């Protein structure tokens, strides 16, 4: 396995930053979990820790997407990147921006008044979930993303070799960039605030990001199994088509109770219930391709790819549909059921996606033919089993909360501090299991291809 073009190596910069942020994300996640049991356990309050946790998550996934895209675009266009220096500049600009944002959060955590508005704008933290980054950082991020997209499009224009995969990938990325814009203006009404906020959050994870996932799934299956492009691309179009046909109007499942008109109960209920269909199709696609595969060149890569397809369906599809009908959501809205779904969906759909792409592309970037896959599998099982148990635990907490607080009318704090205490303890313990898995993955990431193969090489190369 080798890369075709030298500039594809730039992906590794992005991977490294992503992997380190992943480690930070999970470390602070464990602190957040402990704060559910002992709120004053750390110098930074829960809200700051949580912002760090979810922002690190979103940013490392986006950074991962960027690295992956540079690799794929060059590969698909059959040419070097338009400008490698620009890609490097864009990378470092992103690193600096993100570091400043993180320092700002910590500063605000230590001294809340530091976030007092300047000219009506909060300088350190916007105070809106997931898009906490302050306005100046938003602009820098937009510039960075524009430079990134420019580089990609100019690369494609060099050879004008439009493939379906890169078309859909770039389309998804443009949609992603556009959907950042509804989060960039202030509204006096909290209802309108949340309305536009969901454009960003929902149309990202259930729109543009799934488009990107569909394109990358086709790419990874093609690379790891040697399956035919035509077939993969046809199914890709059908999958991403269904994602948008259901997902765009599916946004309505967030417009039930925020002060929006009642017709959203119908629109959101019907369309979001259909959202799992394309995800199921992706699972079928992955299995069909794997079964027909004759020439698997990168087993861990394929293994992670199939796992991504399965857990995308389970986390987003199954754990999504259980609470998406208004009749159910009325009771579970804003409980730990949502947290359970959020974790399994993000893990299955995007964490596993970026890790699969790393395993699919890294061996060729490092120029290794074969590598010892044992750590790749070991970290997968540590992470996945721990995550499944975190999710089951929190689903339990969500059911107890829904029953006791919402149906019986007991007090929120009473349910949290007494009835759900054991669930918090279990989550923290499984969180440590997850951290072990991440640790093994990080070690593998840095060592892959840099150590000699074991003397007894696993299966002999099949031609």
């Amino acid at each position, binding site marked *: 396995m080798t890369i075709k073009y030298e500039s594809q190596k730039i992906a590794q910069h992005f991977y490294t930053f992503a992997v380190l942020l992943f480690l930070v994300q999970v470390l602070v996640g464990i602190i957040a979990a402990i704060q559910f049991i002992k709120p*004053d356990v750390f110098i930074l309050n829960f*809200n700051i820790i949580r912002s760090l946790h979810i922002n690190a998550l979103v940013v490392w996934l986006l950074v991962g997407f960027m690295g992956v895209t540079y690799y794929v675009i060059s590969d698909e266009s059959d040419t070097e990147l338009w400008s490698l220096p620009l890609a490097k500049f864009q990378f470092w600009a992103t690193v600096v921006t993100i570091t400043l944002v993180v320092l700002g959060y910590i500063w605000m955590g230590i001294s*809340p008044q530091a976030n007092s508005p300047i000219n009506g704008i909060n300088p350190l933290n916007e*105070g809106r979930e997931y898009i906490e980054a302050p306005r100046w950082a938003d602009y820098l991020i937009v510039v960075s993303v524009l430079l990134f997209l420019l580089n990609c499009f100019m690369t494609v224009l060099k050879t004008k070799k439009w493939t379906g995969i890169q078309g859909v990938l770039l389309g998804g990325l443009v949609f992603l960039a556009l959907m950042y814009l509804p989060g960039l203006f202030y509204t006096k009404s909290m*209802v309108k605030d949340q309305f536009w906020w969901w454009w960003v959050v929902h149309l990202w994870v259930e729109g543009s990001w799934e488009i990107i996932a569909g394109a990358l799934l086709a790419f990874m299956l093609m690379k790891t199994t040697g399956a035919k492009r035509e077939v993969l*691309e046809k199914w890709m179009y059908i999958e991403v088509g269904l994602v948008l046909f259901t997902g765009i109007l599916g946004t309505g499942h967030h417009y*039930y109770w925020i002060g929006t008109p009642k017709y959203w109960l119908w629109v959101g209920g019907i369309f979001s219930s259909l959202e799992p269909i394309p995800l199921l199709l992706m699972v079928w696609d992955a299995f069909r391709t794997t079964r027909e595969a004759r020439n698997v060149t990168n087993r861990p890569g394929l293994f992670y790819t199939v796992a991504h397809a399965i857990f995308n369906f389970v986390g987003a599809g199954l754990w999504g549909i259980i609470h998406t009908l208004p009749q159910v959501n009325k009771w579970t809205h804003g409980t730990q059921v949502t947290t359970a779904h959020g974790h399994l969906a993000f893990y299955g759909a995007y964490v596993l996606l970026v890790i699969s792409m790393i395993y699919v592309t890294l061996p060729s970037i490092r120029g290794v033919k074969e590598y010892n896959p044992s750590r790749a599998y070991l970290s997968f099982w540590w992470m996945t089993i721990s995550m499944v148990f975190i999710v089951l635990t929190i689903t339990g907490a969500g059911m107890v909360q829904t029953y006791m607080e919402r149906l019986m009318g007991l007090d929120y704090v009473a349910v949290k501090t007494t009835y759900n205490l054991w669930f918090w303890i279990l989550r923290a313990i499984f969180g440590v299991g997850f951290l072990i898995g991440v640790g093994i993955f990080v070690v593998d990431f840095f060592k892959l291809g840099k150590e000699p193969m074991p003397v007894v090489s696993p299966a002999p190369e099949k031609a």
Partner: protein
Amino acid sequence: MSNKAARNLFIIGSLFFFVIFLVLTFDTMGKLDKRAPVITEEVNAGKMTWHKYDCIGCHTIFGNGSYFAPDLTKTAENKPKGYLKQFLMDPKAVNAKAAMPKFGISAQEADHLIAFLEWTSKVDTNGWPPKPILAAAAGVGGKELSAGQRVYQAQGCTNCHMINGIGGTTGPDLTKVGSRRDRKWLHEHFEEPQKVVPNSAMPGYKHLGDQALNDLTEYMLTLK
């Protein structure tokens, strides 16, 4: 289906659904202001304060946000202003067990936040949060209520106090209050809590009249 047909279906279909979404968005925007009270300068200042302290990092509002602390959509409906103000400015001074930190919220910021929470409490949310449907919520297992219990229910003491596991956690648990306090203390405390407990965040109930306060006191004394 050919690849080209699949691609065209994807593009045209997606645009089609996005256009419908835009039309619904346009219609919704026209209706939102009628479903909510007018936004005054105070309410807007409260919303800005909300963002400044990143309240969403612990709380939900309209059910969206973080799940570390209670939803605040209807708080202003259930809790008196005076209490809220004291709590926001220094949570642990009101309730030693509070997990909410002290942020240095000023008196004016607290007023703004309360105006903001009053606004959210009056937004038409299609009936969310729903009323609990199981009997335990009422705190009565089909028994006849005493006069004191009736005042207790009507005044919403249960929003702040817990008896036998039912009720709020912002004030002390009253399950055994009868063995802690005597008649005189209770009566005076109901009239003007701040006179008995300095800086108490509990509202006074003098306006209910002596009869109601006596009934309440009787009820408290049975809790042993």
